[in-house]
């Protein structure tokens, strides 16, 4: 039982990282109708800059600010220099150009930081574990990540539900033509939304730094998971991003943790382990396929 709670927390933590990634990206998809493969690059930039600043200054807080700012700034620059020219182009052009961006950023990080992965220390004060329940210690840092993620989700909800800017963004995601009709400076709004998305991705990147190795190409594995989240949740829908991120986070984590044990009850141990390894790595994609068959436009489609 304690193991289940621990894994649920791990699943929540993956879900939160995925939510930070997909919240921004789903808005970019929904509002600008542009497919952006380079979103993972902002995650990577956040992680690299964060790791570097943390190593230089020893302050995780500073690292976080720097990583998030760098990712957000990169996002705005990329939007102005590249993405802006792609809004009215075909999806194929967008895929290719943003693929070019990935090549560029991945190689650039190799030039600047080398081929060896960077490792980031868990911030002081968060290195210990907290005993959540008797017999259930859980790393404080991971709890902090979960807490931060929940706070950001709350802040996003406030932004979208309570502010004028948020309402404009939501209106834009549900109906693109409306943004122009509302008399909004569309170009600025697009840059802002894109920058916000990049910033959130950067935050996810910095927070992943002490848990994962910071390396070139790290953005793409989470990018593809993010796509799965968006497909499940529905393009342009924040609610869908929340639901999709939690579903994917839980299914992936719990599948990896418990499928071997479950399968061992019905199969021979060696068969069970290899089947479980295959199944658990494919679980979220099978989940996606199931959602597709059931609701091709995702659980919470934003467009009618």
């Amino acid at each position, binding site marked *: 039982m304690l193991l289940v709670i621990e894994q649920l927390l791990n699943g929540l933590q993956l879900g939160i990282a995925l939510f930070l990634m997909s919240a921004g990206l789903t808005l970019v*998809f929904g509002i600008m*109708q542009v*497919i952006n*493969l380079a979103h993972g690059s902002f995650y990577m930039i956040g992680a690299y800059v964060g790791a570097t600043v943390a190593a230089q200054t020893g302050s995780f807080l500073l690292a976080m600010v720097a990583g998030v700012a760098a990712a957000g700034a990169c996002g705005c620059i990329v939007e102005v220099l*590249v993405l802006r*020219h*792609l809004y009215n*182009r*075909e*999806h*194929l*052009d967008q*895929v*290719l*150009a943003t*693929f*070019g*961006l*990935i*090549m*560029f*950023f*991945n*190689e*650039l990080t*190799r*030039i600047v930081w080398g081929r060896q992965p960077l490792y980031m220390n868990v911030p002081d004060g968060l290195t210990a574990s907290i005993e959540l329940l008797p017999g259930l210690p859980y790393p404080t840092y991971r709890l902090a990540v979960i807490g931060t993620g929940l706070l950001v989700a709350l802040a996003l909800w406030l932004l979208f539900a309570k502010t004028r800017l948020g309402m404009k963004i939501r209106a834009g995601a549900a109906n693109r033509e409306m943004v122009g009709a509302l008399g909004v400076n569309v170009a600025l709004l697009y840059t802002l939304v894109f920058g916000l998305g990049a910033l959130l991705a950067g935050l996810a990147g910095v927070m992943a730094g002490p848990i994962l190795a910071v390396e070139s190409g790290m953005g*793409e594995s989470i990018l*593809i998971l993010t*796509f*799965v989240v*968006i*497909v499940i949740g529905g*393009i342009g829908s924040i609610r869908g991003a929340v639901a999709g991120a939690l579903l994917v986070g839980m299914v992936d984590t719990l599948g990896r943790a418990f499928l071997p044990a479950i399968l061992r009850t019905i199969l021979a141990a060696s068969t069970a382990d*290899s089947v479980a*390894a*295959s199944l658990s*790595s*494919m679980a979220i*994609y*099978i989940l*996606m*396929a199931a959602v*597709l*068959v059931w609701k*091709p*436009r*995702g659980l919470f489609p934003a467009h009618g």
Partner: protein
Amino acid sequence: MTKKQMTIGCGALFLLFLPPAALLGGEPYLISLGSRIVIYALAAASLDLLLGYGAMVSLGHAAFVGVGAYTAAILSYHSFAAEPLFAWPFLFTGSNSGLVVLPLAALTAALAALIIGALSLRTTGMHFIMITLAFAQMLFYFFVSLEKYGGDDGLSLPARNSLPGLNLGNDSHFYYLCLATLALFLLFASRLVESRFGLVIRGAGNNNRRIRGLGIHSFRYKLAAFVIAGGSAGLAGALLANQTEFVSPGLMHWTLSGELMVMVLLGGLGTLFGPVLGAAVFLLLEEILAIYTEHWMVYMGPFLILTVVFAKHGLFGFLTGNRGKNG
């Protein structure tokens, strides 16, 4: 003779005489580079059927290359280990004969394309792109988890396939096998896009709503095109496995799907022959840039972006004035 025919003719002559020329020039390495180019050209041209004609932006084409490659490798692994691949409904211990392996590789990839296509083609646009990418990634992880066949580390082929009358261990023989396969595919595909089927695919790619208005249920045509393209990519995969005598999940990594797309775009979308040129230019650029810098991608990326933003019709269009079917 039109400019297009001349360009294709020149290309064909060049490819046809590459092995003797390379041997004469004392650069036999060029033959295996040539094989690689021809194999990737096959994969890229098959992707062009989807991208350029049916407007199906599949970002998972490498998965089918990988499935074909693994089929070839697994069949030959079992054949050399004399270990049954399956015992029911009949005993099958794999095979190393190209006559068995190549068609089976294409069939397996086509089957994978049938399943993935049937699910993905329920959607369009951005959904389709993300879903094809996700399913390709699923196959990637599936092969990573296949410990029996090397998992992450991949699987070596004991030898190249055998074919009556050819010695595929000989690079020139192997090169001509690849070239003949490519030529057959291009012949088939260029007939295909001008057939009734091709007309429907092009129509659906151009304006799917209108196709429905005509009373055509485009899903099954698109699915058939997806299966044909997937099967052809599988064939390319089997050839690739033979060429390097090694397969690994890296073959179906999504960056390879992206690179195949780049080849199609570089050469010219919706031209079939363009992607052949695109594959050649991409792989040669990679070879040449790698001599000068290990960081060639940092130049390739912006080059790609500029190509997308400014040059829409690819090299083939530049050479022939042919802007492709959907240009």
